[in-house]
């Protein structure tokens, strides 16, 4: 099966966005882009997503904010961030001229906040796209996440689209939903350019001796290798539900992991929690993907997207225990 090594075209194009390779550092796991410079050069990967940005700075939740679980971790950072103004004045300049795609992750507690942040970012020099984090609690609707309601998704995505017409718009879906395909269609209809998934899964850790939740926020979001099969499933579902390009993530820690997400339908991937236990993970993944393709004589990594062959029609919507 091996051909003699040939150069591999690692570029991928997702709608309006073109990346030098399919690997993006995930929001909330890579700070504001400069923190991991000691470990590898940002220009070696396709892009990075900033920590979620709100209109005003947010202090975030009180500790304890994280807890390790089997092959994963729970986090409830509380969306602590410097706020959109400080991002533009203090963080973004350091990234200008870097030959990689810079994406700002955006959230709000109200639709208006989403819109205001997006409008502020629109046209910012050195910013290439925004990613809407729909897993934020909607304080106007009893704290339920925007992302669980197709109706809310349509509203917020449409208005953000209008507020930031010049920036490619990634919409990041929450997995805590019965039918993620509907959420994907809602985002697509409302004008998303790209869908990114998944965000973290709702989870709980119990401090047994003290009969208390480990996290001050009680619940947290599960990430890491533990969720990889769940995330792959959702990418597979969304790929079938819409034709929008997909940025897949969830437990990716190796080139093989990333390539599996491509085969399942992703045009690019994000590496998150792996950055915590391997600060060079995005680089290792990108280099490994290229080596894998070269060893198999695959000329363009892009060609792998959505190549999953389904053996039979009767795929079942069940756990089929």
């Amino acid at each position, binding site marked *: 099966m091996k051909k003699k090594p040939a150069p591999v075209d690692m570029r991928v194009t997702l709608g309006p966005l073109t990346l030098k390779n399919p690997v993006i550092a995930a929001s909330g796991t890579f*700070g504001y882009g400069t923190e991991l410079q*000691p470990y590898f050069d940002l220009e070696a990967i396709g892009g990075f997503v900033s920590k979620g940005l709100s209109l005003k700075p947010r202090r975030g939740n009180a500790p304890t904010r994280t807890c390790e679980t089997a092959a994963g971790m729970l986090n409830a950072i509380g969306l602590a961030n410097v706020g959109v103004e400080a991002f533009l004045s203090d963080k973004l300049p350091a990234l200008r001229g870097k030959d990689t795609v810079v994406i700002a992750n955006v959230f709000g507690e109200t639709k208006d906040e989403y819109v205001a942040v997006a409008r502020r970012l629109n046209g910012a020099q050195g910013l290439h796209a925004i990613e809407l984090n729909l897993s934020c609690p909607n304080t106007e609707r009893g704290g339920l996440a925007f992302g669980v309601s197709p109706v809310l998704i349509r509203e917020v995505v449409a208005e953000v689209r209008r507020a930031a017409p010049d920036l490619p718009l990634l919409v990041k879906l929450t997995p805590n939903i019965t039918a993620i395909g509907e959420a994907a269609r809602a985002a697509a209809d409302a004008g998303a350019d790209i869908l990114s998934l998944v965000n973290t899964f709702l989870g709980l850790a119990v401090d047994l001796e003290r009969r208390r939740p480990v996290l001050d926020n009680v619940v947290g979001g599960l990430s*890491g290798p533990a969720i990889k099969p769940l995330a792959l499933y959702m990418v597979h579902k969304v790929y079938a539900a819409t034709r929008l390009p997909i940025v897949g993530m969830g437990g990716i820690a190796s080139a093989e992991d990333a390539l599996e997400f491509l085969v399942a339908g992703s045009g690019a991937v994000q590496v998150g929690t792996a950055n915590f236990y391997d600060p060079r993970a995005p680089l290792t993944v990108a280099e490994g993907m290229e080596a894998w393709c070269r060893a198999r004589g695959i000329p363009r990594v892009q060609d792998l997207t959505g190549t999953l062959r389904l053996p039979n029609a009767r795929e079942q919507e069940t756990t089929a225990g």
Partner: protein
Amino acid sequence: MVGGPPPKIKEVCYSPASMPFDTAARILSHDALNSDHFLLTLDAPRMARASRPGQFVMLQAQPGRDPLLRRPMSVCGVAGSPPRRLQILYKVTGHGTRLLSRQPRGATLAMLGPLGNGFRLPARASRAAARRPDATRPRQILVAGGVGIAIFPFVAEALQRLGHRPLLLFGARSARDLVGLPLFGRGRVDVKFATEDGSRGTRGYVTSLLEPLLAAPGPRPSLYVCGPTPMLRAVGDQAQKAGVPCQLALESQMPCGIGVCLGCVVAASDPNAVPPYPRVCTEGPVFEAGSVRP
């Protein structure tokens, strides 16, 4: 937060020049100090040279994904000249450290560091001063609770190089937990013990050893503290009441150790401080008593 260290100290204490890095370190020796305390010696020349007292590393407990995250461990000491070996003293407290304790000699573990700010150390004592009896000079007091002792051999050595003879106040549940003393080099530190069961030294907590020293006349001592959170709070309060400089080495859950996850934060005492939730891994692990609420 720790104030910027005076230039004179820079080269011995925390040097911003030393960028952290990721390496694979081979286990040279791995000895049980008692049923649940272990001393790990790793072959890590660069890390050993770059490390400063009070800094830590993120250490993988065993190959593979269990545990997923690395564990923060203080640099207990470095050996060889130039330093080649890095020592870690740890206690088995859960899943990860239990697996770590099974790693054999010869195994290699991923290790990231050196990380964190480390302790601010005093100015080098002048020749003259160094000859003066300790009583007439600000006493450098190391306050250790349980496995908190792990951070101090490296600190004590640095203080000695600076011409000081530190005093170690070591508290633990019982005599069997008073581990690591040989690492301090015989006769180069004074030591006082406190055990909860009275099996060695005073019965009770280190705070009771500290009390008279803070009350005593003479130059204000300077405190370096590491141990369980309740102890950090108690000693921190004592020191502030006495108006004595006191550095606390904190612990917290550390997913990344490099400042990107925002998971390891501690609350600043002043809610309006910037940042309101400093990161123990980056702004710390060493904080001035009173600046944060451990």
